[in-house]
Structures are given as structure tokens and as C-alpha cells.
């Protein structure tokens, strides 16, 4: 049986387009220091460190080794993950397994990215297979727009539905002191007036590029109970991957096979049959408005074709039955290597009752997801017990 694992502390930087005041190492230090302070720990209390970063974005191979003093890694076992958009959840899940296995008692997990320091669209375009995909893809945007067009065609969601998601995200972000894009007065009309980056995706339908880092401390049951009045217990984790090429699952957004598989696995492990009823909050990895709508279907929040209705009825807003992305989500902040870990950290803050102005009252069960690459999905359920 795996040991019980709890998240006891989190730390984030203030995410912005360009942190010109500090370098990558200092960015990491900011998040790590906040997480350690949050737990009342020193680096000498940490057994091992798990790191997540997408190094092609900085043009820096093994930047965590250059940054080692930034995360207090001297003499520590450490490992670095690189799985695209999911890297933050992949790192958190690895930390979970290492504690659950009994190998380590207390682990620091860190995700970081300074997107402003490299060439983002080139780094994303080279995700494509050089023989089959790379010449056509225009970074994440072109590739994503192709996926979105299929989803719009099949689901009947409108540009207005997408715009409502854009508004929800950037307004929620105003309650999150770490969020990058905070737009308190954003309206649906403004979103619809923003230019097409690649039809049907408009500028405000898409996530920003951010600099930022996120750190968490995970501990085994006995330690977690001492370190936090209410740890966020990791109740289930799952990863599901797709086939090899971008066109293998042609209905990628409309039917994200990997997301359905991963979410169903964690729901089953936690006895969740109706996620909208059973979950209290969700922090999901949505790079664009249309992705969030499609994910409502794939995560079982609504029946196929009903995602537009869900946002029309406000089910996923802060006052709805299942608030989705109180933090503002990826549409408000995307610092690749940190992004998925921020989903887990934000879900943990909700469970620990430490989410401040974005707190969902009495949050008892939370879902966090990561999504990246050619449809790679991670899912975690956190809970108070």
C-alpha cells in the first residue's frame, strides 16, 4: 500500500510577461523560499527535490543544474522532468510516488520557466515531428486553431461562449495576487473585437506567455500532520498519453481520449460519479477558451455538446456549483514549466483553506489537471481527508 502523501506548503512568484529584474536562478529562489516559509521548513529538512522545466523555451540545457543554489540542491537527490504542458503535474506526480514509495519523507517540487528569455513559438513548433508536422504548425496557436475548428464544428459552441470563458478567467485572476493577466473590466464584446490569431482563435481566446515559478512541499502522513493544520492530501493521480502523431486522434478537442481516461481513473479511485456534484473546485490546464469548453465535456462536467450551456448557466463561475479555475487558470498565466504545478498548488490552497479572495468556501475535494504535447493528460484529486 502506498504511504499517504500530503501537500503541506506552496510558493509562487508574481507571474508576469517579463521578469527583467531577476534571472532564472533568482526566479526559482523566490518560489522555493515562499514554499519553505509557508511550511516553516529549511532546506535541511528536505530529502529530495523534483524539478520541472521545458528547457527548449530558454535555450538552456539542464538549467536546473546551473541554478542549483537557487533551489537549495547541494547534496540533495534531484531529478528533472520535461513533458511539455504537463511538466508541472508530471513533476508533482513523481514527487507523490517518491513519498508514497517510502523512499523520501519530505520532497520539494519546483516548476519554473522564463518564457521571455527564449523563442516560445519556435520551441513549441519543434514539438511537431520534423518529417510530418513541423513545417505546417505555427507554434501552439496554429496547431490549436485547427483543433478548435473541429470542436466548434462538432459541438456548436459559439464565439460568445468562448468569450465568456475568456472573461471569467481574466476576472477571476483579479482575486489572485500571483496571476499575470488581470482584467477586471474585460467584456465579451472586447474579446469578440480582438483580432484572429488563427481562425477561430482570437487574441483574447489564447493564453499569455509568462515568466514564473511554483514550488510545493510534499510530505508523508506523519510529517504532513505536523507541518500543516490542514494538508491537501493527494487522493489519486493518473497520467494518460495519446498516440504518436497530431492527427491520430482527429477529434482531439472534441474527444480527448487521454483526458477522458485520466479523469475517469482518478474519479473511480475516489468514488466520484458526478464530478459537478462531487467536486468542489477544479483547476484545469486550458491553453485557450475553446479548450476549456471541450474539457468540460471530456472531464465529465457536462454531456457532449453542452459545454456552451454550462458557461451560459454560470455553473463554472465563482458563484456556480463547480468553480473552474478560480485562479484565472492558464488563460491568465502560462509559464510552461510551472503552469501545471500551479494548478496543483492552487487546488491545494483551496483544500487548505488558504486561497484568500479566490477561496471556494468549504472546498473539500479538488481536481487539478495538466495537458500538453500531443494530448498528454495528468489528473490529480486533492482532498481534506
Amino acid at each position, binding site marked *: *500500500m*502506498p504511504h499517504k502523501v500530503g501537500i503541506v506548503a506552496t510558493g509562487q512568484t508574481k507571474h508576469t510577461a517579463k521578469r527583467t529584474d531577476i*534571472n532564472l536562478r533568482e526566479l526559482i529562489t523566490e518560489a522555493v523560499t515562499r514554499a519553505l516559509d509557508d511550511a516553516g521548513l529549511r532546506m*535541511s*529538512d528536505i*530529502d*529530495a*527535490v523534483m524539478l520541472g*522545466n*521545458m528547457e*527548449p523555451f530558454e*535555450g*538552456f*540545457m*539542464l538549467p536546473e*543544474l*546551473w541554478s*542549483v*543554489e537557487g533551489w537549495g*540542491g*547541494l*547534496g*540533495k*537527490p*534531484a*531529478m*528533472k*522532468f*520535461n*513533458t*511539455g504542458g504537463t511538466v508541472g503535474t*508530471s513533476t508533482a*506526480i*513523481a514527487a507523490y*510516488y517518491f513519498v*508514497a*514509495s*517510502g*523512499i*523520501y*519523507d*519530505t520532497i520539494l517540487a519546483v516548476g519554473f520557466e522564463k518564457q521571455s528569455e527564449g523563442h516560445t513559438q519556435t*520551441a*513549441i513548433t*519543434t*514539438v511537431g515531428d*520534423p518529417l510530418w508536422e513541423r513545417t505546417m504548425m505555427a507554434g501552439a496557436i496554429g496547431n490549436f486553431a485547427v483543433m478548435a475548428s473541429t470542436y466548434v464544428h462538432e459541438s456548436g459552441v459559439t464565439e460568445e461562449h468562448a468569450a465568456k470563458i475568456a472573461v471569467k478567467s481574466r476576472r477571476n485572476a483579479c482575486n489572485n495576487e500571483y496571476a499575470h493577466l488581470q482584467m477586471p473590466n474585460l467584456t465579451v464584446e472586447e474579446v469578440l473585437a480582438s483580432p484572429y490569431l488563427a481562425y477561430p482563435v482570437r487574441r483574447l481566446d489564447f493564453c499569455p506567455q509568462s515568466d514564473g515559478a511554483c514550488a510545493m512541499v510534499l510530505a508523508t502522513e506523519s510529517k504532513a500532520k505536523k507541518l500543516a493544520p490542514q494538508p491537501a492530501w493527494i487522493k489519486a493521480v*493518473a*497520467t*494518460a*498519453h*495519446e*498516440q*504518436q502523431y497530431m492527427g491520430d486522434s482527429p477529434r482531439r478537442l472534441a474527444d480527448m481520449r*487521454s483526458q477522458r*481516461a485520466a479523469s475517469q481513473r482518478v474519479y473511480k479511485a475516489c468514488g466520484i460519479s458526478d464530478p459537478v456534484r462531487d467536486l468542489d473546485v477544479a483547476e484545469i490546464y486550458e491553453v485557450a477558451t475553446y479548450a476549456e469548453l471541450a474539457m468540460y465535456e471530456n472531464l465529465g462536467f457536462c454531456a457532449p455538446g453542452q459545454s456552451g450551456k454550462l458557461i451560459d448557466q454560470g455553473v463554472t463561475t465563482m458563484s456556480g456549483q463547480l468553480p473552474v479555475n478560480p485562479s484565472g487558470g492558464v488563460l491568465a498565466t502560462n509559464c510552461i514549466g510551472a503552469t501545471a504545478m500551479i494548478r496543483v498548488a492552487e487546488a491545494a490552497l483551496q483544500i487548505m483553506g488558504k486561497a484568500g479572495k479566490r477561496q471556494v468556501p468549504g472546498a473539500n475535494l479538488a481536481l487539478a489537471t495538466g495537458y*500538453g*504535447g*500531443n494530448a*498528454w493528460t495528468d489528473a490529480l484529486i486533492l482532498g481534506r481527508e
Partner: protein
Amino acid sequence: MDGEVTLPAPGQVAILGAVQTRYEAGKPHQTYNELVHEVVDQLLTETGVALKEIQSIVSASQDFFDGRTISGMAINEVAGGYLNSESKVAGDGIQALIYGAARILAGAYDLTLVVAHCKESEGQFHQITSTMFDPYVERPLGLDEHIAAALQARRFLGVSGAAEADLAAVSRKNHRHAMKNPLARRSGDFSIEEILASAEIVSPLRDLLAGPITDGACAILLGSPERARASRRPVSWIAGMGSSTDAYWTGRDLAASAALAQAAERAFAAAGIRKPLDDLRVVELSARYAHEELLYLDALGLGNGAAAKARLATGDFDLGGKLPVNPSGGALTGNPTCVAGLARVAEIHLQLTAAAGQHQVKDARTGLAHGASGICGQSQTVVVLRGDAPQRT
């Protein structure tokens, strides 16, 4: 609390099988995905496990060498990753192995496939390895992995009193060992003079003192004790694992490896090894450069008081000696980045299961596999393996 980690007791994670490609200067007819297919397919055939049974995969690769962002993504189908739990370590494959072992120890999976792959021939070694260096004060100087290794070699020679001929003796031993390993990239009965006359890369490094550009892949299947008991072939067991991280290369003494000493201490403690020189029967080190082998042997305490170079001279580290080091030929004879450390584990597994063929070490019951990554081996990992026989008593 620092360093006080609970490592697995013997017998909890088994290696059910290990397969490597031939290591070659280039593999122009295969993509890296096809290399992985080759090793996984052979591994599953040998172990009698179906691809459908694999639900957990950890790979190790390096995006810059692969020329592809999230390069591990492209091996999902051939490694059984569809709708399954696949993750990727950006580092040496031996770290992927440790993560795979954690998944089994956590009770989450009874099988985990560990894969490492790299085609160094497809990119440009200088440009790619230059991206590891400090962007502010080092990259303008045009540094790369060879140049840093040369600086380390010079420092090691000065501090240890070893001569360039001692480095050549390491190379001679390993290339002779490689003659008995059909997978080896480079082998031969080179004389000390020939080695010291080989083309200079960066002084004091020469062609035969540095591992060549190589393509290859390695796959290992980890299993729970239940899976091990059901295995129709001999298995080996992970007896201890340890890792540590050093300071960035310009912030430490390059003539030593504190991180390796720490990693070994942790792995030895878990494996109950008190006198490594007596308890270990075979060692495989990730030493791409000849000086690294001596430096690492000293850090591991395998010189037993004497400097490793003295033991080298007496033949202790030869195949047939007291403690054979790199009977496969090791990374100096050609193993690519990311693959080298996992290949060391594969080689120790072959030794402990009496499957190493011509380079078999007699009565190998306990062995050490080592992996490193980063500039001048900043990140260090040690895995101690035991053969099946002791567990059945």
C-alpha cells in the same frame, strides 16, 4: 533529516530484463522512435511480457540532442504509452530507473518500462552542449562539454599526481574490454603510445581518451517481487539507490566528486555494503572521459586507500581482476548522453544473471551501476544490484 532517507530493502524491485541496441557512430536508417521500438520489442520477447501489459513507462532523453521539444513524446506508441502513464526525465536514464522503482515500491504498478535513447549523430555536439553553460560569463567563451572535461582532466592530473599515461591505461583497459562486447561502438587493443598519439580534441583530451559521438538506446523492465517470481528468466534486484547533486562546475573542486561520494554512501547504506571493495564484484561507471573513471573510483573509495591509478596498474580493474571496472568497455568506448547510465544498469544486470557472454565476470553476485549528468558530472547516481541467488536462500 538531511540524507536520512529510507531506501528500499533488497528484493522489492526486480530487473526482469535489459536490452541495448548496438552502439554505432550513426544509425542513418532508424529514427530514435525506431531505436526504442527495437529494444522494447526485444525486451518484451525475452521477458515474455506483452506490450499490452505495460501501463507505466519512464523515459530519459534530451530535447537538445533530439532536436525536438518534449522528445520523449514520440516514443509513446512503441513503448506502450497509449492511454498509459508515461513520464520523461530530462537527465540520465539511471534517474528514470530510480523513478520507475519508486512507482513499483509505491504499489502503483507491478511493471514499469524504463527507456533511454539518443542519437548524438543527428545534431552538433559543440552547439548542443554549449547550451549547458552559464549564459552570462561562460557562453561568450565558447565552452562545450569537451572543453569543460579537458579543464577537469588537467585539474585532476595536477591534484592526483596521475600522468597522461594513466589516462591512457584506462582507455587501453576499456577498449580491450569492448573487444568482448558485441554491442560496443569502439574497441581495440590499443597501446599506450597509440592512445597518447591519437588526435588531440582539447588538451589533454584525445580521441581515445573521450567517448565518441554515438547513437543508441537501452530498455529495462522493472517488476514487483510477484512479477519476479513468475519470471522464466533469472532476474536481478535493486539493493540500494542513492543520488546527489554537486555545485555548478565552476563552484567546486573539479578534481573530486562530493556528490558521487554522497550518492554511494546512501546506496551502500541501503544495500548493507560496508566494504565496497570486498562486497562488490563488478562495477560499471558512466565515465565518458578517461580521467573521470579514476576520479570516480577515488570518490567511491574503490582505490582502498591507494589511488585508483595504482590499482589500475596492478590489473585489479581488468576483466579477470579483483574488481572488474567497465567490463563492457563503458561509456569511453561509446554510449550516448542519457543512455550511458541506464546502459550501466543493463550491463550489471547481464553480469548478475550470467548473461554477459564473453565479458562475463565470474561469480558476479553484487554490482554497482553509476550514472551522471551535467557539466563534469554535477548530478550523480549510484544503484547497487544483487543477483537472484541470495534472495532465494
